């Protein structure tokens, strides 16, 4: 085969980005003739900008206002789905402070009139809160959003009982609920079935002009995802494979902690990564509509501006 094509993949050091790590470590990218170099970011937004600027080719992140606006500027396209909420598998959880819990907020239905931690207006946290309100039958604006920018800051605020509620990925939620000050009162999956948490995206240029490259990337990525799902989500591959997988992921995530400490967090954080990068277009549309209804993005952005559905199966 011809010399491997060099591409750059943006990543955050989270378990949710594990599919790329697996594909890299197990040579699936090589198989597709891709010479991958990772670029690590500390936040999703700079990664999106880097892709728009052409410094990075592929990335995985949640649908955010920034992503939609960048897509609207013709810079990027969503090409597939990654992390997926799924009933039966631990997904994002709804947390409340002990004080609120004692105060009667024992189910998500009681969140009406309570404060809710989010990173930013327009972040996925606000989307989740609004979906809870919608299903429980009150207006989203009746949950008081507190933008706190950083997950760490929200945790601090929740622990010190300055906000009442929050929702977060399972391994963090479980870790927090072990302490005396935080209670779990529900699951996001109950409110947003098939929530497409993260998506795969690339520059609009790649999507339009290097379709072959995109396909090869997705193929390798999916193979990594399959391994990951089998080892840690469905646990069909056996304990040894699970162990191997955790070790592999530990090369990238929680690197500064010893293996024994990192392993439980990695295991708890495992959520399904869609097979064949299938994309839940229905949910993505719902998310886009929500952004529009909140006035966070322009009303005339169509789903086609955001998503290029030609690469993967959508539903």
């Amino acid at each position, binding site marked *: 085969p011809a010399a491997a094509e060099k591409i750059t993949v943006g990543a955050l050091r989270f378990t949710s980005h594990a599919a790329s790590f697996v594909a890299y470590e197990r040579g699936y990218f090589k198989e597709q003739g891709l010479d991958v170099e990772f670029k690590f970011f500390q936040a999703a*937004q700079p990664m*999106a*900008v880097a892709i*728009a*600027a052409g410094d990075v080719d592929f990335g995985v992140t949640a649908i*955010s*206002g*920034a*992503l939609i*606006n*960048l897509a609207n*500027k013709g*810079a990027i396209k969503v090409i597939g789905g990654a992390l997926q909420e799924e009933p039966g598998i631990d997904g994002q959880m709804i947390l409340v402070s002990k004080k609120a819990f004692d105060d009667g907020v024992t189910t998500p239905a009681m969140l009406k009139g309570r404060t809710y931690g989010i*990173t*930013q*207006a*327009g*972040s996925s946290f606000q989307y989740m809160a609004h979906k809870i309100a919608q299903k429980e039958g009150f207006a989203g604006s009746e949950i008081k959003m*507190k*933008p*706190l*920018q*950083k997950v*760490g*800051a929200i*945790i*601090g*605020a929740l*622990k*010190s009982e*300055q*906000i009442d509620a929050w929702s977060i990925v399972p391994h963090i939620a479980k870790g927090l609920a072990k302490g005396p000050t935080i209670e779990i009162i529900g699951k996001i999956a109950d409110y947003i079935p098939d929530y497409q948490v993260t998506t795969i995206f690339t520059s609009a240029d790649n999507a339009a002009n290097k379709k072959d490259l995109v396909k090869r990337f997705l193929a390798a990525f999916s193979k990594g995802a399959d391994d990951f799902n089998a080892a840690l989500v469905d646990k069909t591959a056996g304990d040894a494979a699970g162990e191997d997988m955790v070790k592999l992921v530990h090369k990238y995530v929680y690197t500064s902690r010893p293996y024994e400490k990192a392993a439980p967090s990695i295991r708890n954080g495992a959520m399904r990564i869609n097979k064949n990068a299938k994309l839940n277009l229905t949910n993505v549309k719902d998310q886009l509509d929500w952004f529009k209804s909140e006035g*966070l*993005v322009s009303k005339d952005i169509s789903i086609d501006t955001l998503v290029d559905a030609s690469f993967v199966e959508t539903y």
Partner: protein
Amino acid sequence: MADTRPISSQSQSAEEPAKTVPFRGGGFVVKPLGVIAPLVFVVIIALWELGSQTGFISGLVLPSPSESFEAFRQLFDSGLLFVHLSASLQRIVIGWTVGSTLGIIVGLMIGLSSVARAGLAPLVSAIFPIPKIALLPLFIIWFGIGEGSKVATILFGTFFPTVITTYGGVDNVDRNLIRMGQSFGLSWMSIVRKIILPGALPAILSGCRISGSIAIILLVAAEMIGAEFGIGAYILMAGSLFATDQLIAGVAILSVMGLCFAWVIGRAEKYFLNWRT
């Protein structure tokens, strides 16, 4: 040896070249040239607009000034501008005033007392470099998610540079003048107030220029914590939505705040330091 005092015959003949003594003084004094500053801004903005219009500057991340101005107009029309501005100004004014005042006091202590210097100066060196952003979670615990933590962020940010410039200024006060004060039996307090403080004032004002800018910078960090309104919150929002026109509009508001602040300090310098050449 005979005296060789010049007599007229020895004096230079009339044909000798005569020229005026060249002027070599002057200079090294900076005079205000009012026109240049606005010109510079106009030129920069015009070039930027031109660049955007011709596509030389990609609209991807840097919108044209006119787009940003449009975003600003929308903000203005929505009536939110003044809500944002007043929220931010209040935080800055309180945070900066308290931070600078404490900074000057601690700076004076470090500048005046060996014990305070030995104990506090290393603490300042150790705490100043800690990024406020990293400490946000702690700030929330300590100061809550209300105005407290926002003001505290700005306060901490302005405190440290003020301490450093103040004690630098105190160190630089002419010790002879202090001895003079002592020889006239001035009290310690008088010496500090009338000799050391005015002597350190140029450095303190220059420190205020810095701390003022830092206070404005920290608005964004401060308003990360549960702020609904404020220029910083507006910028954060624009940033997270990647609405670059709003982002630039917000940043421009910060710039204008910085210019106003610099103007005030400039006035203060004119007023307090008019004894200098």
